[in-house]
């Protein structure tokens, strides 16, 4: 056999133990896959990875690879130790956008596997941290062939570089009783309006959309996206008093006091002597805790919509930021509602494109210029829901006070008039 088998004593240690081993999977490809392109590439990859383990260093460098017509979507990888491991010297990753909610049929997964078997290393991840299907390891030439094939049956590349990135949403309304939104529609309305900005990186830096159906935020949208859309409701939550009684019977009164009533962040729940439950819905901040614990008894109300937060991001460069409330509540029912959501996203991205410094995320830009300048730039009025508390420093020039107060009263009057 011509194929070179590298010794991998350190990686072999990762075949031990009860959790499924990726190294065993790599070895199956090396030892059992009939196609030399796959078995040799993965054999060589194992050699390079072992070398990394032994020297505690990475050996990939970037470069430029893209498919015809696009500027992004591929993560190019060239080996710095190609002399020793030549068969994996090009090992690019394709980022492919998953369906909203990450649903697949087994047939579709098999079809994708068959295409990848023709052109790639045989390694796939569902999904990367940003949300893409990652087809890991192929050559520059096969990048194009693989993309051409899967693009014909409905799959498109995601973003890489300074561009609108692949979006993600939680399992949501498809299978979750807490959902207050159609996450799937929101995700597709948003990200598919910006396909040009996904495929041709031309922004100051990356821009991510993420959608969660309720404030549990299973999708980690507030911290991990520039534009977070979170489902919520504004009428009263629903209380099924029979289910409340059943819950108390099953768990005990003390359990409900210790785990529900006293855990409410705004102390807005009362457990009555007759084992019914009252909620002061004006004080409820829709934190979801009581709905999570008393899942059968408590449910979101009917007047559903979304809260939009802007500017979440990870450490580089000024430190981690959570998104900030920009729109406290927005209905999403009609086509016009969705269109106005997309318009807001366009405003935000246009402003970001024009005003952010190179390599500055939206949240950092807001930090630098101040929230008020950002709001004025995107045409959104100030709202007390946007802050934890009003300013505490008196070092500010306020000679426009009367005008601003007038604006507030005018807006209130307009709202009251409907």
């Amino acid at each position: 056999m011509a194929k070179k088998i590298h010794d991998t004593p350190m990686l072999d240690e990762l075949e031990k133990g009860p959790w499924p081993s990726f190294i065993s999977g790599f070895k199956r490809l090396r030892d059992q896959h009939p196609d030399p392109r796959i078995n040799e590439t993965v054999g060589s990859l194992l050699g390079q990875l072992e070398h990394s383990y032994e020297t505690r260093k990475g050996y990939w460098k970037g470069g430029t690879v893209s498919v015809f017509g696009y500027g992004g979507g591929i993560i190019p990888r060239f080996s710095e130790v190609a002399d020793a491991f030549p068969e994996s010297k090009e090992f690019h990753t394709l980022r492919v956008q998953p369906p909203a909610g990450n649903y697949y049929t087994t047939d579709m997964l098999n079809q994708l596997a068959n295409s990848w078997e023709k052109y790639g290393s045989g390694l796939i991840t569902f999904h990367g941290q940003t949300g893409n299907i990652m087809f890991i390891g192929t050559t520059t030439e096969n990048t194009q062939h693989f993309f051409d094939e899967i693009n014909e049956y409905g799959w498109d590349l995601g973003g890489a570089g300074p561009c609108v990135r692949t979006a993600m949403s939680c399992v949501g309304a498809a299978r979750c009783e807490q959902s207050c939104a159609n996450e799937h529609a929101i995700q597709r309305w948003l990200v598919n309006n910006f396909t040009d900005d996904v495929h041709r990186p031309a922004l100051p830096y990356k821009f991510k959309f993420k959608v969660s159906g309720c404030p549990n935020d299973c999708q980690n949208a507030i911290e991990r996206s520039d534009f977070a859309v979170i489902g919520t409701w504004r009428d009263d939550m629903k209380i099924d008093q029979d289910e409340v009684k059943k819950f108390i019977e099953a768990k005990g009164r003390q359990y409900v006091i210790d785990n529900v009533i006293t855990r409410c962040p705004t102390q807005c729940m009362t457990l009555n002597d007759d084992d019914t439950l009252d909620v002061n819905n004006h004080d409820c901040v829709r934190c979801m805790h009581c709905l999570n614990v008393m899942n059968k008894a408590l449910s979101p109300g009917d007047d559903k919509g979304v809260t939009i937060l802007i500017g979440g991001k990870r450490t580089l460069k000024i430190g981690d930021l959570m998104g900030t409330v920009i729109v406290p509540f927005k209905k999403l029912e009609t086509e016009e509602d969705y269109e106005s959501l997309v318009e807001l996203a366009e405003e935000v991205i246009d402003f970001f494109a024009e005003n952010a410094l190179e390599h500055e995320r939206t949240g950092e830009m807001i930090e630098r210029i101040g929230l008020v300048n950002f709001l004025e730039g995107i045409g959104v009025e100030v709202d007390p829901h946007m802050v934890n508390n009003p300013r505490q420093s008196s070092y500010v020039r306020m000679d426009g006070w009367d005008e601003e107060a007038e604006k507030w009263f005018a807006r209130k009057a307009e709202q009251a008039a409907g």
Partner: protein
Amino acid sequence: MALEEMRQPIESGCPDGFQYMHPVMRKNFGQWKYHEHPRPGVLRHVAHSGDEIWTVKAGTQRILDLFTLRKLTEIGDKYGEGYVRFTIRSNIEYMVADEAKVQPLIDALEEAGFVVGGTANSVAMISHTQGWLHCDIPGTDASGVVKAMMDELIDEFKNCNMPNRVHITTSCCQINCGGQGDIAINVQHTKPPKIAHDLVANVCERPSVVARCPVAAIRPAMVNGKPSLEVDEKKCICCGACFPPCPPMQINDPEHTKLAIWVGGNHSNARGKPTFQKLVAAGIPNNPPRWPEATAIVKQILRTYKEDAKDWERINDWIERIGWPRFFEKTGLPFTKYHIDNWRGARASLNASTHIRF
């Protein structure tokens, strides 16, 4: 190939998920009433219509080879109903309408070596990044760290008996693709970059590297008659932000690239507002292939949390109740000068009160 022969891409973007959704989920979209957790790894969702959907969740090695992926789809065809999804922590979920299929599905998954669990109050699958396998800037591996740790935490994944769910993340550089976690295991460099001066002029756009540094420690300089860069090592915080735009700024070091552990990151709005993770341990050796030192500290934190936290307390809720002094006391971890923040906004993390627990 001539340009005109190249195929134009179809810019279809994000595909519609409805076409791949289980018919019961499509039918009851937005009409779910409640769910139950009959056993670890299994969820039963009931719709207002009375329809039910059963979910079986399993952990995998995340980096799937074709054989493993086909095994997963084969199980879905033979024992499931052909509909799956992946969670954001890369677990696979099989959805079936027929309860009778649940046990055979679990048996088939376990028989094939997958791990059923990861629901409710479990230590969920650790979310991980790319690492030495396929990133160009990593200080450590990702898949290997996670495999080694999940081997040790598998019972917590299978049994779901923690006070609340525990989300663990890892990141293999200080950019931290891994995000916030109840526990996060992240690379922490401890020495400034070593500069390969010969290469800088050719590979790096110097002004943008200078601009990338969070503490303005980099300035252009001539070294050996060639344009290069210079780092003020007293200012440098060893973050590695200069490395991606300028690979000659070598930040990764087999000895001095360490791991740090952070706790209390929580994305959810339940009870308190979402929280960022806080530093608890550092100086942990980056020790492949199994990183035992990092795993030992994670297990120590988990053990203390499990014994001490009340029902429904996430790690951040628990620490908020008992206070940080007691966290360090109970876990036995040292509190050092490095725990006191000096980054922007640091004042807000100081105790400006007499609120002290004795």
